[in-house]
């Protein structure tokens, strides 16, 4: 059928309007929701990710694609749910307490959404309690912490400790990032993963989900 490859195209071009219309039509024509997602939408976002990695796409292109993807996904979600399909994973993300930098965090959130994750973005300057609450209410698999200031990096540790004290640490994986953060620092504070940029963050989240299921 030609619709889904038009869907692929619409997402690739970041055309939310088209993506929505095509999806709607496809569903009306009885297309399989899971097939739409796995066969066309995720491949489109993978191609977007590839172009971004290759520096053929800039962020605006990427975000427009992610937005188109999200629009189509929102439409499909009910069908998916009733067919028992799950999102790639549930992520609670935020910039830690005291830190207002959110551009990088927003990018990571969008890319995760584009990658099929269900993302709960708590914004910037998020205290540990809020992360705990969000993990409880969303049943998150992953908590993603961002920090851009060296003086707020310690808040990552505090947040992880608070998650432990709340008895949630074993239920979730924690990933961290932001310009001053390093792999070594991530290990030091007991995070499960670190990545340098937003596309690597998606790959990381997938790895963490796999590790989670394996464990």
């Amino acid at each position, binding site marked *: 059928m030609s619709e889904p490859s038009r869907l692929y195209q619409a997402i690739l071009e970041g055309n939310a309007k088209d993506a929505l219309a095509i999806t709607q039509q496809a569903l009306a024509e009885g297309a399989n929701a899971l097939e739409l997602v796995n066969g066309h939408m995720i491949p489109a976002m993978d191609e977007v990710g590839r172009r971004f990695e290759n520096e053929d796409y*800039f*962020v605006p292109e990427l*975000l427009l694609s992610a937005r188109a993807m999200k629009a189509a996904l929102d439409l499909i979600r009910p069908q998916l749910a009733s067919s028992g399909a799950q999102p790639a994973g549930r992520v609670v993300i935020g910039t830690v307490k005291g830190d207002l930098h*959110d*551009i990088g965090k927003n990018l990571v959130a969008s890319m995760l959404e584009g990658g099929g994750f269900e993302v709960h973005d708590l914004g910037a300057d998020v205290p540990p309690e809020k992360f705990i609450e969000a993990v409880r209410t969303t049943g998150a698999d992953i908590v993603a912490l961002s920090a851009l200031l060296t*003086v707020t990096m*310690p808040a990552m540790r505090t947040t992880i400790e608070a998650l432990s004290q709340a008895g949630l640490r074993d239920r979730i994986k924690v990933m961290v990032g932001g310009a001053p953060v390093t792999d070594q620092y991530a290990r030091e504070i007991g995070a499960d993963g670190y990545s340098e940029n937003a596309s690597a963050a998606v790959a990381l989240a997938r790895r963490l989900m796999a590790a989670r299921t394996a464990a």
Partner: protein
Amino acid sequence: MSTYTCELAVSNPDELVFGSAPKPVRCGFDMEIGAGTVFPEVNFTLPAMEISDATWGEVVGHYEEMARNVLKRAVSLQAPGIVLEFELLPPMTERPEWGAEITALLRRHLAAAYEKSGLKSALRVTPTDIRDQGKPPLLRTGEAWEKLKRSFELCIAAGADIVSIESVGGKEVHDLGLMYGDLRSIVFALGCLAPRDMAWLWDHISAMCAEAGGRTVPGGDTACGFANTAMQLAHQKMLPEVLAAVVRAMSAARSLVAFEHGAVGPSKDCAYEGPILKAITGCPISMEGKSAACAHFSPLGNIAAAMCDLWSNESVQNVRLLSGNAPEAYAELLSYDCRLMNVAARNGQSKLLRDWLTESDEWLSPQAAILSAPAAWEIAEAIVNAGDGYQRCLAAGHAAAGILRRAVDEGRLRLPAKELLWLERIEAGLREMPSAETGLWDEMLEKHAGVFEPSSYGWPHFDLGH
């Protein structure tokens, strides 16, 4: 009474050189900035650590050490003068007494070095603009603004010679504009929102300086949250360089407002739009480039020095390097950079060195191409010939896009296809902008409902201009 500047203080691009500004600034311990000599502006900050009651002793220790080392180096290298910048970290603005304590400490060190070794100096203090905590941010009321105001007051009282800020009004919309490459939102943020906040904020800052007796100079602002964000994103290949270049030019229309509301320079180091500001206002500017690679990479390493009056390292943490601590190493580096410029000036050759610094970078990046003396001057002229904040912003954008287009057409600037595509998009986008800001309002109020708070920008008197 209109506060819009309509004339350039610098009558031709050849007069735009490092070290000299038409309106030098006297401040601190016998410093005169912009009067023929370029001075280092050394910036330093804490290494990765928490700031709390428990660690405060350690924090103070770091600043003591940094001040001691930097001044020792300046004396040992016989620097003709030095500016220290203390950029408060957010907790130090949240608790204004903390910022004031460090201000007083640094000032004491400067006084001692002046007395003991005759080292000329000044202290720039930059409280953190913490007003963007809320969603949408409250800029003119509420706790954050109260604390920010108090931070200025206390730091002025504690001995700041120059005060600056990196203000954030309009940024909440600009961030979104950048991320989606949405020119209309970018122009709205830089041309409509930001100037209104700047006018309001800088009226307050200048008043605070005046009320405290006028010993403290209101320095200037920076479009850091706008143009440097774009520059960093372009550096990471996340945004097109041509967009970052056009945003930089437009941001000058915004940063100019500080000067129209009391600032007299030296402008803030990370305001790479400085040369445009200098052409318009004649006030001295602080700039940063290659020797700030500790804090930012940039395609402006040398060209940034071409017209500077202070030369800065932007920010470096108090970490140990092989020679000593990083702030001391950067004090040495900047001192030598300045020496070279001052030698050229002494030999009557500022313009020649300026042109070499320019040629070094000019055609390797669109962001550099719009910051040569002629380009900066052209953008400056476009700004002063335009009308209100919105029109000045647009005029700057048009001028910058025009400079890039000419350079591309004439083969001086070579751009990859994807950058050319964006240059076209930007040109088209600029052409499609309404001729007056009122033409944007409804669209923006709807599109960014909840993102920005109109009353923060004077709404319902929004339409009165700033």
